[in-house]
């Protein structure tokens, strides 16, 4: 492989990594901060893509982004209401919303499971026009994604330092303590999930606009892919202050895409992506658990072996 091929591989990974890192940042808020595993992520991602595509096709590429985020926010709000006000388990609430969103997404896309945006103006085509003739003309896709990610990282870093942000972090850490600070944990959960799903919607919208099409499966498996990325990022930059950890989440998304892109180069079939992401999540979560069980396992082995002969 020559240098330019390697560079182009890196660039593809970077673009896709940046766009999907918005979903990773959403999970950073809901999973790492709020301690809610939001299983509506897949549907919400598709919702963002569908809503964004429909509005962009109608001729409003910028409004599409806002609309996708609002749609995500609404979906997050419903997931949160189900788990905080209606006694539905948080995992189940996510699954229910995810299932419901499938129908809604097809309805949004006008009874179709595929939308084509080949001739549609998107934020990316706008950026391309804007950058035409400059040195960065080829990088328009990455720049748009980078801008979105930077804005979200800065927002999260600032937001999680506010009183509301602290309350959201404490909700995942010790809800009792939130209550004794006269804050309703139901409220913080609702706000947290609204914001995180707005980012998921944004992520879906940008992916759809960058690849100029949406199909109903665009979000399938997104929650596992994003979780894998988040956990990879955690391994590198999991400690320290919020901005560092948020950057870690983005780094994780990039690394995940990089490994995946390289694997594709080595003739791994594209359909393996989801299996790979599942395995990564399993290793990242089960690994530390199994490691903590090791001493007991060794102890047991020693005990079994020592039986019959006196221990010395």
């Amino acid at each position, binding site marked *: 492989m020559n240098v330019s091929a390697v560079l182009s591989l890196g660039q593809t990974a970077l673009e896709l990594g940046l766009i999907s890192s918005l979903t990773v940042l959403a999970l950073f808020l809901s999973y790492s901060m709020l301690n809610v595993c939001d299983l509506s992520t897949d549907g919400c991602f598709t919702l963002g893509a569908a809503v964004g595509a429909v509005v962009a096709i109608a001729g409003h590429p910028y409004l599409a982004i806002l609309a996708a985020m609002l749609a995500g926010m609404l979906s997050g709000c419903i997931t949160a209401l189900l788990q905080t006000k209606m006694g539905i388990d948080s995992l189940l609430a996510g699954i229910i919303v995810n299932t419901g969103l499938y129908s809604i997404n097809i309805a949004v896309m006008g009874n179709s499971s595929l939308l084509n945006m080949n001739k549609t103006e998107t934020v990316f085509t706008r950026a391309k026009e804007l950058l035409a003739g400059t040195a960065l003309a080829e990088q328009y896709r990455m720049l748009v994604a980078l801008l979105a990610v930077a804005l979200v990282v800065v927002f999260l870093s600032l937001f999680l*330092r506010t009183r509301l942000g602290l309350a959201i972090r404490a909700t*995942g*850490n*010790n809800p009792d*303590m939130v209550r004794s600070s*006269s*804050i*309703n*944990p139901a409220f913080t959960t609702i706000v947290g999930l609204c914001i995180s799903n707005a980012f998921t919607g944004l992520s879906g919208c940008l992916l759809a606009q960058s690849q100029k099409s949406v199909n109903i499966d665009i979000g399938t498996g997104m929650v596992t892919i994003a979780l894998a990325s988040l956990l990879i990022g955690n391994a590198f930059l999991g400690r320290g202050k919020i901005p560092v950890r948020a950057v870690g989440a983005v780094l994780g998304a990039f690394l995940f895409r990089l490994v995946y892109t390289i694997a594709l180069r080595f003739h791994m079939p594209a359909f393996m992506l989801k299996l790979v992401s599942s395995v990564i999540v399993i290793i990242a979560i089960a690994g530390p658990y199994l490691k903590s069980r090791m001493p007991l396992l060794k102890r047991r082995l020693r005990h079994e072996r020592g039986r019959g002969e006196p221990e010395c």
Partner: protein
Amino acid sequence: MLTISHISKTFNPGTVNAKKALDDLSLTVRDGEFVTIIGANGAGKSTLFNAISGSFITDSGSILLDDLDVTLLPEYKRARQIGRLFQDPLRGSAPGMSIEENLALAAGRGGWLGHISRADREDFRDRLRPLGMGLEDRMQQPVGLLSGGQRQALTLMMATVNPPKLLLLDEHTAALDPASAEKVLAITRRIVEEEGLTCLMVTHNMQSALDLGSRTIMMDRGRIIFDVAGEQRAGLTITDLLEQFKRAAGKALDNDRMLLGVE
């Protein structure tokens, strides 16, 4: 002033496990009063605290804090006026967040989008300094790194950073080692005195029940069976208390931990 009138609470009503945890209990605590509460295992001491702080809503009766009727108010709304410490020192603070962030959340200054200001930081440090635990130099460290005693002292600061109308201490030194317990108790005494807080404290230590505060009540089977203050209390010994209990409850006091503390 706390006015509790005829509250009752039965857990698992209508089943074989039905348990009357609070039985037509009434209690009035004046402003600035420090009441110690003792009683056998399962007498309803913690249940009383749960009722006051709103962990559950009582079946009947009413609870007033000054003029505010809190009977049906959810827990988080009552928390504005009521500070509470539990036996478990891990319950009152968020381990993954820094000392400063924990205090900021408890202080609740500024609006929802307010940040921790430099003045807040200084104020938090000034409050932690008298604890003599060096916490003021570790403001950025996660609370999870602190010892049980340090965490309980911090929780106490968090509960009193905005002086509450009522402070509930539920055996808050019972899970600490003796030295830490001593220290946390001394801090408690100082803060309650300085702020003139109205305070209820459950303890299993009969001696501190008599030494601390200005009034002692004894509970059994969800009722208050003995209530003593002033001069009458000043002359009491542990033996008197045990005698009183036997007379009022018709049985010997069977709080295991309490008896261990008697010798």
